[in-house]
């Protein structure tokens, strides 16, 4: 099934983002010599990834007790240190780990975790508290709160997989698009005036049409000038999405955020076969992405971050799967990273309702990305009082 059904293109106040020229400086230090903005690549692991079988606490007896059929044997993990190792299916990520292009944040979650897919991803998307309902994405909030200080920020977002989530809101012009072929059509859409009709449904359609037309013309112009990538990407849904993303970045499309999605992580049953395949696809696609961008000299402009609604229950269920849980590790990839492990692995014995207690608040990840990658001011209220992480060299 290659169709991604939850796409949307966000309404923005007319002309606001479109009046901004193609290449723009970000905050201090964010401007590359080429004048092309940095790109954040968000990888949504849809369904809730099993963190304990991604970064395995291979020395802990409690892990093997909780996972009689699903545990990864200690001698098969890819050791990261004396306590933790990657699932063997993540082998393609090891070169990045050795080059310090890979950082792993441990035990990422939030207090009073919600175990509903939809509510929890909403919390992640909007950087809200567990009991607080917000509607706009964390990237929108950061740009909005930064106000004048973000006036130079690039504001084009491209969603290649899944919902707009973190980009939702009108601070970014977000284009949701399946592939490059659609760009040509988009550029040919009729132009219409931006006058509001007073009918929200019709206004939405007209806004999508206008923005698609404008953004497509800008992106198509860039891509027309770039040469095809030599790197071969895996023929998986994620591989195809990341190949598109790589082509856009290498072609200097001025997108500040590109979102992709890998589905299938809701492994309530039969996890032993499915989960390693998912991790293998993730690692292969990310490794190809890194290779392609190194090849085209654009890796310095990229930061990859994974996220998901939750990790999974510590104890496996009777269906050879795992139910909805709480905290989980997440990956960063990029040339500017310090690399290595961030934070600490949650305890497997001090649990809350059978679930891990988070050791790192997800909003600290966002705060670091906003300040140290997107060049927005530090201390934005959207991400709470906790300090950002020390991610970059």
């Amino acid at each position, binding site marked *: 099934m290659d169709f991604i059904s939850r796409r949307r293109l966000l309404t923005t106040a007319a002309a606001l983002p479109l009046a901004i020229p193609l290449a723009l400086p970000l905050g201090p230090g964010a401007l590359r010599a080429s004048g092309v903005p940095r790109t954040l690549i968000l990888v949504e692991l849809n369904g809730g990834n099993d963190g304990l079988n991604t970064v395995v606490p291979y020395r802990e007896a409690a892990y093997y007790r909780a996972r009689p059929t699903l545990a990864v044997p200690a001698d098969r993990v890819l050791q990261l240190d004396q306590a933790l190792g990657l699932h063997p299916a993540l082998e393609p990520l090891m070169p990045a780990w050795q080059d310090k292009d890979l950082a792993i944040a441990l035990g990422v979650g939030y207090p009073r975790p919600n175990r509903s897919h939809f509510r929890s991803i909403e919390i992640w998307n909007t950087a809200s508290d567990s009991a607080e309902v917000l509607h706009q994405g964390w990237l929108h909030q950061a740009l909005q709160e930064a106000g004048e200080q973000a006036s130079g920020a690039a504001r084009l977002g491209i969603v290649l997989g899944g919902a707009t989530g973190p980009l939702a809101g009108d601070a970014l012009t977000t284009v949701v698009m399946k592939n490059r072929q659609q760009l040509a059509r988009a550029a040919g859409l009729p132009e219409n005036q931006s006058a509001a009709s007073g009918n*929200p449904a019709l206004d939405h359609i007209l806004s999508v049409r206008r923005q698609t037309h404008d953004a497509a013309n800008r992106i198509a112009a860039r891509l027309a000038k770039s040469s095809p990538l030599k790197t071969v990407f895996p023929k998986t849904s994620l591989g195809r999405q990341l190949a598109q993303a790589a082509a856009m970045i290498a072609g200097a499309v001025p997108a500040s955020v590109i979102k992709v999605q890998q589905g299938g992580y809701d492994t*309530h049953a039969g996890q032993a076969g499915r989960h390693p395949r998912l991790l293998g696809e993730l690692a292969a696609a990310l490794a190809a992405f890194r290779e392609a961008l190194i090849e085209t000299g654009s890796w310095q402009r990229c930061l990859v971050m994974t996220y998901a609604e939750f990790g999974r229950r510590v104890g496996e269920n*009777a269906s050879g799967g795992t139910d909805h849980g709480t905290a989980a590790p997440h990956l960063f990839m990029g040339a500017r990273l310090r690399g290595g492990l961030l934070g600490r692995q949650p305890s497997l014995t001090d649990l809350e309702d059978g679930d891990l207690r988070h050791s790192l608040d997800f909003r600290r990840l966002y705060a670091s990305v906003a300040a140290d990658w997107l060049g927005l001011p530090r201390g934005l209220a959207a991400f709470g009082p906790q300090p950002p992480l020390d991610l970059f060299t």
Partner: protein
Amino acid sequence: MKTDVKRGRESAAKSLVLLACAGILLGSAGVGLAAPAAALSAAEARHLLVRSGTAATPAEIDALIPLSREAAVETILESAADAAATPPPAWIENWVPPRMKELSPEERKLVRRLNRERGLELRAWWMREMVTTPTPITEVMTLFWHNHFTSSLQKVKAPVLLYRQNRLLRREALGNFARLLKAVARDPAMLIYLDGAKNRKGAPNENFARELFELFTLGEGHYRETDVKEAARAFTGWGIDRRTAAFSFRRQWHDGGDKTVLSSNGPLDGDDVIDTLLEQPQTAVFIVEKLWRHFISEKPDRAEVRRLARLFRESGYEIKPLLAALFASDDFWAPENRGRLIKSPVDYIVGTVRLFNLPVSDYRDLARLSRRLGQDLFDPPNVKGWPGGTDWIVAASLLDRQAMAERVTGGRRAQGAQTVAMGGPKKRQAERARRFDDWLASQSAAWQGAEAITLLLLPVSPVDVEILDRNASGALLRQLVLDPAYQLK
């Protein structure tokens, strides 16, 4: 009757004449000053037909306009059926669930390929039913429940089980919600989709129980985490017979211990949990709100929702009287709620085919098109179903809808347009364009005017099209189908 296409710009004075003529023309079709006050206007008849079905044809509108609102609603609801008219694919009969673990890798591959082919045939079967049904409300409600009690071929695999679930959803589409809920909890496709079949004593699988609370009855925020965990125990042992793939209760897997779910406690089983949920006033509120968003507007009126929910609960969860009350409400008819919903891909495709009586050589093409536009029948994106509303229209789907409209109407094909199969590949464009001229010519005199045709095709004024001619033409029809307002219902 053939009309001449007038291309000249008309003066403002002529436009006024045109409006007057449209009024007279509509009057001749049954609406006019002489009609009883309670009779529907053509626009109202259109609104009711499009919202309760997928299209409003001139003949359907003509049949409703002599009626009062209540009589029109009753006509539509009384047409409801509890079974499909289109015979299912032959492989539905005599199906035996494959024992995948006993098959060789080649045989398994064969089963998977067969499932894929049959999955597409199943979608085509439903598409055909939606296009040809004499009772569109039945299909609209069946699809509504499919989007509520979601199950997906991706997970369930066996198309036969999704067919059986679809038969159940249609049987109770306008029947009884309590009966439907209990049947869905025993439905094999649902037991697979939400892992109920694997839910056993000692290590309960919470997947079904969680969605039962969050998505099927109460909605988020109206229950505690412990209710979900306890309810999961109550449903342990509800499984599937491996030989027949029918529901079977496995006593040895059932946790017969005491549980506390909301206000009930004791050795509860699944039906007890469902009864407890049906006692909660919030369940009726949750369902009524969802129906409101589907049929009326994105902004449910709280007081009205409470009134309708009380009626729903007091009727023992009868669906048809609830729909009658919903369609009779002032909010349903309010002009500010017309043309404010966005057509789903199914509304868009089925509605267009029904309205223009377009020939369909292979219904699998319609199923593929619907998938492309974001609504893959029997394969919702996740357990919450299709988000719908403004989510239907994003850059990609807008472009694909445009491509479909251009192809159907034989109009201009934009550069790089992908072929959207409809009415057979590579048919001559001129032939398709002529189809619209012929369709128009076959309509009664009342529907030959430009204003009447605009009212027929669009719920609000067109954005791109300026109505200049007094008479409609095939060219005008094509322009209106391409107008953004055609995406609205």
